[in-house]
């Protein structure tokens, strides 16, 4: 087995950082679905364009958070061993 040197720990940290960014798939699917529903609602009633736009931007900014958690974990793993 490998001895637990600093190189081994750093290599494992880089692997873990790569796996942690895979949580970006969740917000990608969810926000794309929400944007599709927003465009469909716009086609149904074009007068409410500005309030649909505001609501969609707000909802996507809130749904982005869980994807950001994976990014923060990856950054901590890369820069702090």
């Amino acid at each position, binding site marked *: 087995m490998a001895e637990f040197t600093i190189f081994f720990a750093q290599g494992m940290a880089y692997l873990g950082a790569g796996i942690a960014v895979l949580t970006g798939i969740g917000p990608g699917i969810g926000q794309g679905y929400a944007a599709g529903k927003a465009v469909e609602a716009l086609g149904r009633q074009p007068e409410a364009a500005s309030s649909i736009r505001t609501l969609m*931007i*707000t909802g996507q*900014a*809130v749904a*982005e*958070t869980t994807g*950001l*958690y994976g*990014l*923060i974990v990856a*950054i901590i793993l890369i820069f702090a061993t």
Partner: protein
Amino acid sequence: MVDVWIAFSSGMKASLLITAFLMISVTLIGLKVKKMSYADVPGGIVLVAVMLVQMFNNMMEDFFKKYWRQFTPYMFTIILFLGFANTASLVGLATPLSNFTIAISFSALAFGSIQVIALIVHKPVKRAKNLMEPHPLFLPINLIGEMSTPFAMGLRLFGNMLSGAIIGIIIYGLLSWFGVVFGAILIHPIFDIFFGLIQAYVYTILFTIFLSMAIEE
């Protein structure tokens, strides 16, 4: 004295400069507004300030039914500081919110002010009864919810601003002179102006919603 200034990290220095700039300019604009009488027509920067405050008051009246006059100045201060802080890397400063300490203190500000304001407006007995709202067994779930949502608010700002700063460092480091043109056209408008202003707006709206949920019956 110079040692204290050098020892700060670049995010703290930018935050102090932004605070000083906002204090001076808002005081000067307020003095100009106060000197006008009712029949004068405002012009120039006074007109911009009056229109901004009126637009923000109309937005806040939809959320707070009873207490909007007390809390609108607090919300306007937060959105003014966050708006200037997220776009500060356009003038050469570092963004204050890419520093972990400042971002965590924003989430501590949201948590602390909601608890203190709810304890002042409702008496502690009524506040405890509000926390056990559907059934007394819901008390741990409500407590965890009160703590985790302000934490997520601060962390959202931190993640957005830090990723913009890291991508900027990579682009400027790899492409020497072409990187400056590429950064000016693509990186700064997307990561600083677009994402920064949207996240400032989302923080203010979430703060307003949680504060009005904790205060109004």
